[in-house]
């Protein structure tokens, strides 16, 4: 069964509205990540977390908040959604240490902000 799941899979929001994207992992990994995917950019890191209660800014954090209430769950929050945040969002989990650095990705959430 899928080890990283995301909900919702598709979301249409209005400009100025609040959007919460949820991610759950059963890998028991310490680190979790939120990326967005846009044509011509690959995936870009928004926020990440080392464990429950921690959140760190990634490369493009403006306009986003994150929350890690437990080992398994990591949310991405858009307090005031804008059309420029229309994108596909991916959650990932991974541990890191020694010769181990891969991340495992969820199926993605397609967000459209009108």
């Amino acid at each position: 069964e899928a080890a990283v799941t995301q909900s919702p899979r598709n979301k249409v929001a209005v400009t100025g509205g609040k959007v919460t994207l949820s991610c759950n992992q059963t890998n028991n990994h310490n680190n979790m990540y939120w990326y967005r995917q846009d044509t011509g950019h690959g995936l870009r890191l928004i926020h990440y977390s080392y464990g429950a209660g921690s959140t760190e800014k990634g490369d493009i954090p403006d306009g986003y908040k994150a929350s890690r209430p437990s080992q398994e769950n990591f949310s991405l929050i858009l307090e005031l959604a804008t059309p420029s945040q229309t994108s596909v969002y991916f959650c990932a989990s991974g541990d890191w240490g020694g010769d181990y650095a891969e991340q495992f990705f969820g199926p993605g959430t397609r967000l459209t902000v009108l």
Partner: protein
Amino acid sequence: AQSVTQPDARVTVSEGASLQLRCKYSYSGTPYLFWYVQYPRQGLQLLLKYYSGDPVVQGVNGFEAEFSKSNSSFHLRKASVHWSDSAVYFCVLSARNSAGNKLTFGIGTRVLVRP
């Protein structure tokens, strides 16, 4: 800072033909390197990874990649492609000892396999 360049945005090949996808990286040390594949409307799946040792690494579904420190490259190859190999392929770098193990992605190469 590190970067990954995939010079080919799109590649079209015939079924049964060989495939090579190019990847060049910029990083001062020896990185961890990955190739991920994204099938339509799906998440990313790991194809193969290079951490150290033998520069040729084998992955799933007949894919292999060769690391070259002198050329700063990590090219992906497959001897004979199948229509199901149509997907987007990402070359990805992780800087050793980076905070949070942040990954740096190339922009991806879209592969179309013609029947």
